[in-house]
């Protein structure tokens, strides 16, 4: 019985706050065997992190914990702070979401890693350094000797996270807890890290507890999946069971609302989960998901419990025993028919960018955008995709006027707008709107929703009649599925999805021609992301505004865009209509991006093209192909030397690569 690494039994974690006691983890029981890996999934606010912090006994002092957590048979909840020290970092290690804040910026990486060995295993300095180098080597970090002398800010985010994992495995822990370790990283880096985690587990035979909101990531690293909702486990079981035969409505909804590869807006409307995660009082019983569930009935409100539905597969739903057909998985909502009047194939140009450059800084230059030429057609959606630091946001910000281009022109509807906001005419400002990534930050926290939406109308659309304006605001709110009662609310009182809806309403309230969407769904949960994407799609059909949709998520881009532009290091790699870009022949970078996207469907396994290395130094003017250093299809020395020529594949589709030309 006791070869289990972790036994959690009826764990409750409650927080006492000003608004009363609420329960963050409610009656959670799970076991984790030796060398097993378990993935915990759920939306934000579902208690995933609280659960892991409870295992580490890292909870804030207003928390009260009940139940039992046994680690190799030892009861962790009864240990004193002093005794816990022997577990933390030594036998149970944890890796956090943000590597930058988990490393001390004032100490060298080597020093911080050595400390672990010296403190926990009482190693001598030399031995500790040896262990450090070994751990770094295990994480496939090139040149460990060099890395140990550096400071955290001198290495990239991906390397930082690998260092954190190396630190975690230094003492060969029995259990490693990873709390969204790749959420802040690019997909390409994520793919590499997930692979090395897999390798490590085989090598060190340790147990893993992997927390993520991303089904695709869980699919890659975990054998068992635990689905949490509002502090409770709603379903758990082997990965394949959960993904192929989910029984709990929440699991189904969660799997369904991911925009998966190949799903496009013309034929699918994304599934959503209405509502949001409600804070749960300590005394509430019944199914936590009841208020968002489509299939609820009277018994849901009353007591319920988790029961076995298959081999090692448990679910907490009445319907779990009804063995209703898993066909619901395939059930898709019908999209709104697209009007053919969209001038997609027109040669009209709404926005024409020519040879656009942006260089930041005066003394230490950062070349953010290095010569972009692109045209945006009216009423179309152009998706801009690339890793962080590729200049996609800078491009969007220059179009919307936050920055002035260093060189090149932006023509909008016949006028030159390569100037900053303070020189633009009211009309231009009105016609181009920007939706920001983080709605919590882009809405003024001390203004009400009404003030927020009313201001651009007053300022740019000359709507000075208060009653007329209010009527229009109510209409706008209705369009983004918010009621009249939101007028007086402040952003703080809204959930992330609602905030982003208000931001969308603000942008649309003055009928712009072009909306620059800068990662509008990246800060949101998948279920909310789906509903915001649906909304953006519907509103585009209605208002005929063009979108410039910036995202790092190729699935999202694929879903919403008519045209796709793939950027790398301030240059365009590939541009074309969506179907052209998403089908071979690919630019090697597009291919790598596509392969790095975690697959949600466990039956489909694909070979990941690992691109290692880092983005080229943005402080140097690039010479040759910017992707050459990381390219898996490099043709030869020419890649480093010469900027690749444009290869035209059709009227609308081209990429910049040496491959085609070399083959001929």
């Amino acid at each position, binding site marked *: 019985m006791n070869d289990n690494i972790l036994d959690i039994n009826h764990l409750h974690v409650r927080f006492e706050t*000003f608004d009363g006691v609420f329960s963050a983890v409610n009656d959670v029981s799970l076991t984790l065997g030796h060398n097993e890996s378990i993935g915990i999934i759920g939306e934000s606010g579902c208690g995933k992190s609280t659960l892991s912090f409870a295992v580490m006994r890292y909870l804030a002092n207003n928390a009260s914990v009940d139940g039992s957590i046994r680690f190799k048979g030892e009861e962790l909840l009864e240990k004193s702070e002093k005794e816990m020290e022997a577990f933390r970092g030594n036998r149970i290690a944890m890796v956090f979401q943000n590597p930058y804040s988990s490393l001390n910026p004032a100490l060298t990486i080597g020093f911080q890693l050595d400390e672990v060995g010296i403190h926990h295993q009482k190693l001598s300095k030399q031995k500790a350094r040896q262990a450090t180098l070994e751990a770094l080597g295990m994480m496939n970090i090139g040149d460990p000797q060099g890395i140990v002398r550096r400071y955290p800010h001198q290495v990239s985010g991906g390397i930082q996270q690998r260092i954190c994992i190396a630190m975690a495995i230094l003492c060969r822990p029995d259990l490693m807890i990873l709390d969204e370790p790749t959420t802040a990283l690019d997909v390409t880096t994520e793919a590499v890290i997930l692979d090395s985690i897999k390798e490590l587990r085989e090598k060190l035979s340790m147990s893993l507890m992997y927390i993520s909101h991303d089904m695709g990531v869980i699919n890659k690293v975990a054998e068992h999946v635990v689905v949490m909702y509002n502090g409770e486990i709603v379903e758990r079981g082997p990965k394949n069971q959960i993904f192929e035969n989910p029984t709990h409505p929440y699991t189904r909804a969660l799997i369904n609302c991911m925009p998966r590869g190949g799903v496009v807006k013309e034929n699918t409307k994304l599934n959503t989960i209405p509502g949001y995660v409600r804070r749960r009082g300590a005394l509430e019983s019944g199914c936590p998901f009841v208020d968002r569930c489509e299939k609820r009935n009277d018994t849901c409100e009353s007591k319920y419990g988790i029961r076995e539905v298959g081999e090692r597969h448990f679910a907490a739903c009445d319907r779990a025993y009804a063995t209703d057909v898993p066909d619901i998985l395939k059930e898709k909502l019908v999209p709104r028919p697209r009007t053919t009047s969209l001038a997609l194939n027109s040669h009209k140009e709404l926005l024409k960018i020519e040879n656009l450059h942006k260089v930041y800084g005066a003394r230490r230059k950062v070349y953010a955008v290095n010569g972009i030429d692109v045209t945006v057609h009216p009423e179309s959606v152009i998706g801009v995709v690339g890793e962080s630091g590729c200049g996609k946001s800078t491009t969007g910000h220059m179009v*919307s*006027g*936050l920055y002035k281009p260093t060189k090149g022109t932006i023509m909008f509807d016949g006028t030159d707008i390569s100037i900053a*906001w*303070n020189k*633009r005419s*009211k009309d231009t*400002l009105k016609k*181009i709107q*920007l939706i*920001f*990534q*983080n709605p919590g*930050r*882009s*809405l*003024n*926290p*001390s*203004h009400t929703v009404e003030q927020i939406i009313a*201001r*651009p109308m007053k*300022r*740019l659309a000359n709507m000075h009649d208060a009653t007329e304006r209010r009527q229009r605001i109510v209409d706008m709110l209705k369009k983004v599925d918010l009621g009249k009662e939101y007028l007086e609310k402040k952003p703080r009182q809204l959930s992330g999805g609602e905030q982003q809806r208000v931001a969308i309403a*603000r942008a649309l309230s003055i009928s712009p021609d072009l909306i620059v969407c800068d990662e509008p769904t990246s800060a949101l949960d998948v279920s909310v992301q789906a509903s915001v994407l649906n909304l953006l799609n519907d509103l585009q059909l209605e208002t005929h505004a063009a979108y410039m949709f910036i995202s790092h998520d190729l699935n999202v881009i694929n879903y919403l865009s008519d045209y796709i532009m793939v950027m790398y290091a301030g240059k365009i790699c590939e541009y074309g209509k969506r179907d052209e870009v998403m089908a071979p022949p690919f630019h090697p970078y597009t291919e790598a991006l596509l392969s790095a996207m975690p697959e949600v469907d466990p039956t489909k396994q694909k070979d990941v093209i690992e691109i290692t290395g880092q983005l080229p130094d943005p402080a140097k003017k690039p010479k040759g192909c910017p992707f050459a250093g990381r390219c898996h299809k490099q043709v030869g020395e020419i890649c480093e030397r010469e900027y690749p020529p444009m290869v035209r594949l059709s009227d609308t589709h081209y990429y910049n690569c040496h491959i085609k030309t070399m083959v001929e």
Partner: protein
Amino acid sequence: MKYVLYQLKKHPLAIVGIIIIIFWLIAAFFGPSMVPFTHTQMDSEHQMVGPGTNGHVLGTDSLGRDLLARIVYGSRSILTVALMTSIVSTIIGVLLGFSAGYFGGRIDAAFLRSMDILMAIPPLVLSMVVLGILGDSSILSLTLIVSIAFVPATARVSRGVLLTEKSQEYVSAARIRGENHLYIMFVEILPNTTGPIIVEATARFAYSIMMVASLGFLGVGMQPPTPDWGMMVIENKPIIAQAPGAVLFPALAIASLVIAISIFSDFVSKVLIHER
């Protein structure tokens, strides 16, 4: 409001602070009419007496003036000056700090250097010199001078909070809406910085009481016959052996008020910062 009560429950010390502040406010408003003596009235038969003699609750000083009356009258002037100082220095500080932080570049550099110069002179010395030159220590000039001495601190705090808010996306959103600078500074940013600014203002309130008392002690504060706590301490120092209360009570008054306001200021910062 409910939240404030909840916080009060968690920080019982704050209640003590608030009670002391309320006590002094009542003393300043109604005290003079409740004390049977005025602050200039001399009781030539009872000089330097201890507490409780002939109706002098706290005793008298070397001229036979009632100490309680003088402390109560003194609270009026000191609270007025301190309150006005904290308001004036906060307003000037916000205006200066906001414009420097908002426009940045040369304006900011010029601002920082001039604040450095002002800060290089200790506020007490600065006020002493200016008051000495002016030779006039009315409530108004005292307020103005102490305010100016405090401006570097309030301006730096305002500049700091503005800088963190300035990088927020709602400011960018306002810019690409073509809003003018004044609107962005005072309608968009100011409401989100009230917390730290109010905390700084209450802290300044405590500092200015210290400052006014010190100036009084050094002889450049409020001029007689206006009673001043600091001045009372120094003018009664020679009789400390005969009537220790004449020094002790005004000193206690200063200490209690300063500590109470500091506690209150801590509490305000807890409530306001938590709220965000």
